[in-house]
């Protein structure tokens, strides 16, 4: 990695100040993507601002929502009895990210801010219709993701917590890239009293997206059969040495049905 300055501020305000004042400063959450990127010299920050001392960890349940601190690790989410009881799809999803070491360092806020098109969490946030709480505002999931590695976050804006409505049912199903174990197709489905939301990660060139045709069918009939006839076009999907766009299009159908079957 290139040389950089390192700061570990003790308050959110201080962290925002450093990051806002310097276009080349970068925030460090769990570092499970960022540190490999630094080691490969693919990023040259002036200052790395470590968010570890801002007190942004923890899981709370109140009424109809779960709130997760941005610096909460995947391991904490995967082992949380509250998450398992309220949003089992999220608990399962967190348990499948990376390996043990990654899960004990990587954070939900870091992953969402990075918006890797093959990351798992964006599908949960979008399918659950969650809200990103930052140092300055609330951003609805539908407005947050703006294409691969791009989000609505402004320069210096820090995610503080993630609010997730508690669905009646939820499930996540992941078809892994055999090498990286990221999602080739990951499907998060959430059933609420009024509707069903289903989000797909890993497949699209534009990053995570909602499959509205499936949502409509599932809102009418929450069963795998309801979506078995839905064909997803390959246009706009990723193709690489592991999976063609056509294969991904096919997998969207298969993996979605399995996610619904798991949730039912």
């Amino acid at each position, binding site marked *: 990695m290139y040389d950089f300055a390192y700061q570990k501020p003790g308050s959110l305000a201080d962290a925002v100040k450093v990051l806002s004042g310097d276009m080349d400063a970068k925030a460090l959450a769990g570092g499970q993507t960022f540190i490999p990127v630094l080691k*490969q*010299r693919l990023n040259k920050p002036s200052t790395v601002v470590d968010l570890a001392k801002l007190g942004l960890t923890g899981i709370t349940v109140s009424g109809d929502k779960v709130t997760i601190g941005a610096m909460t690790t995947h391991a904490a989410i995967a082992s949380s009895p509250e998450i398992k009881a309220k949003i089992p799809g999220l608990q399962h999803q967190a348990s499948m990210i990376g390996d043990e070491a990654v899960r004990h360092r990587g954070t939900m806020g870091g992953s969402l801010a990075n918006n890797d098109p093959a990351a798992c969490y964006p599908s949960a946030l979008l399918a659950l219709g969650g809200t990103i709480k930052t140092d300055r505002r609330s951003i609805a999931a539908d407005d947050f993701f703006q294409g691969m590695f791009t989000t609505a976050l402004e320069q210096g804006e820090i995610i503080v917590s993630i609010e997730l409505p508690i669905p009646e049912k939820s499930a996540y199903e992941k078809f892994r890239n*055999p*090498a*990286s174990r990221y999602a080739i197709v990951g499907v998060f489905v959430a059933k609420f009293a009024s509707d069903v939301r289903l989000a797909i990660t890993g497949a699209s060139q534009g990053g995570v997206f909602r499959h509205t045709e499936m949502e409509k069918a599932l809102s009418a009939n929450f069963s795998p059969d309801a979506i078995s006839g839905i064909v997803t076009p390959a246009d706009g999907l990723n193709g690489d*040495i592991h999976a063609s766009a056509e*294969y991904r299009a*096919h997998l969207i159908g298969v993996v979605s049905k399995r996610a619904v079957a798991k949730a039912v």
Partner: protein
Amino acid sequence: MGFQGIGASVRRKEDVRFLSGKGNYTDDINRPGQLYAVIKRSDRPHAKINGIDIAAASAAPGVVRVFVGADLAAEEIGGLPCGWQIHSKDGSPMAEPPHPVLAVGKVRHVGDPVAVVIAETKQQAKNAAELIEIDYSDLPAVANLTDAVVPGAVEVHDGVPGNICYDWVIGDKAVVDGVFAGAAHVVKLDLVNNRLIPNAMEPRVAIGDFDTSSGDFTLYTTSQNPHVIRLLMGAFVLHIPENKLRVVAPDVGGGFGSKIYHYAEEAIVTWAAGKVRRPVKWTCERSESFMSDAHGRDHVSTAEMALDAEGHFLGLRITTLANMGAYLSTFAPAVPTYLYATLLAGVYKTPVIYVNVKAVFTNTVPVDAYRGAGRPEATFLLERLVDVIAHDTGFDKVDLRRKNFIPADAFPYQTPVALQYDSGDYQTTLRVALANADWEGFEARRAAAKGRGKLRGIGISTYLEACGIAPSAVVGSLGARAGLYEVAEIRVHPTGSVTVFTGTHSHGQGHETTLAQLVVSQLGVPFDQVEVVHGDTAKIPFGMGTYGSRSLAVGGSAMVKAMDKVIAKGKKIAAHLMEASVEDIEFADGKFTVAGTDKSKALAEISLAAYVPHNYPIEELEPGLDETAFYDPKNFTFPGGCHIAEVEIDPETGVVEMVNFTAVDDVGRVVNPMIVEGQVQGGVAQGIGQALMEACNYDPSGQLLSGSFMDYTMPRANDIPNMSVATENTMCTHNPLGSKGCGEVGAIGSPPAVINAVVDALKEYGVRHLDMPATGAKLWSIIQAARPLMAAE
């Protein structure tokens, strides 16, 4: 402590330090005043170098020196030598284009080293390397084997027309063609053996050290064979005499063949240490290793078998293209010839065989031996071909194998492709494997799987390999530029403990345990009083290292011979001390006894007398008890056996799950059953990796697409099923231990078993053959393509 000699599953003594973080790997070594080297590598597959501007890099903070190819050329530093010469069918020697340590004039693959920066810190060296400006003119490149041999293809080297390194044959084509002309059945198969990247857990490291007072050079390196490196680098590259050059290969974290070869970085750090008169360390980064460690496999073949009406194999005809990469790595030419074509009789009594191998240069990383080396390629071809014969002719695939096996009473058996097998019993390994795998119960398991929506298949591979390399005169006649004997020194210390100095090298195999067990059994010395030393040319005699499953069969045999000498000398000392004649002294269980009496002396008493020779036959016998033996094997060894794989495929996704794996191997005498089981398991895991996951991909322009673990799929623990591993051994007849070797059998026998199982699972889709790796994406495409055909039927 129970029995710890030959046959005991003694726990590996080296694992205590490996598992507690106390191993001493090359990267753990740091020399006083050490500098750091970073290699500037080509990012182009093929380009002319118009100029290299090192001014900014040389002036960068902390930089001591920057060297380019011209600096080495000016000092007449040699290119990296090739250790094996093949002759083409017309008698001409293979094309052996220069392989400069740092590129001169052109770069020929992504990763080709162009310059080296030596600086006070690694960080400074990396910073400076980014400042080197190389003016390239890109040239068209060729990465794919079949593209490289079409007329008019881009030529990787001037003076190597058509990219052909050699065009080699074995067997009589006219005779084989004649057999085909009269055959009842001819079955033909085109197949590819996929290119692999070895990925040892420990990346390569090299540290050059120069002693300014003595003028001695030391190279610390991640090598499987330090003496070979000393010879190649000292004699052919740097021109340093052996007495001034020491090579140390300490703990090494896996090699699988990729650490046999002499690499450019070893020469660079050693030479540079002499120039800057300080130690120079280079540590390979993982992404760098993908483009600089020798790759494996990469064959394209056509195989044809002629059969009579009853299904007896009459003749085999094969043409193979073998990728050499951009330059010849140390033993590359031997792999597709004498480690491949000579294995194509397999376990079958096929009377005539003709093989034509063309070795081909491409703009890719050099290719050389990787666990199994040639034998996995031969086995995959043969065992796929036998299954395809069964598919095409209707013969049962097990009966077909049984019918064509070399019978157990036919040994020694001379094959039509040069090798003479000493022992084996293929009917027995087959029979036991079929029983262990519950072959008979498979159709019930297939039906049960179908009920769960899964396609279940079973596949068999009855294989043989040749290892324990090798008789020096034989390999010399085949083109080897080295001898392949092994050496051991047995030093019995005054108080009776023993140090073994072996020319073999352990990089994960557990030699410190296995070789110590030989001493326990032969000299009766307790296990914890035996130390095995390897990997340092300043300590061990000139040995050839570890590869080709040779350490026990060849290195262990050298130990037996050296211990024979210890016992013979000990008997003379014992006879003197006990006032008996030498002929009357017997040695057993660590004691010298006068036959027919109760008079005896323990080995420790004899060794003490040997080093404190007060009462000693000093007129007839030298003091000391320290014996060395060189052992040159009389033949290769021939492990073999039967592997059976069982898979389930999800037809919706194409994904294969390994559900069962059964191995029954014949590895000769087993010294440590636990270590043999582990070696087979590890080899099978690599075989499953090749069969289902691993693929080194280049795009047509020569860019490496699978250049990291994000894109190159290594098998993980949860991809590997629980395995049933057993042995049914016949003894090697020509070495004193009877051992054959077990390091490679797993990687050799398993890939065709897995693919045969996958093809079997897909039989309702009309699949006759598919190439490795059988990824979900590939199988899904095959299933998709077959569906309309099935619907039409």
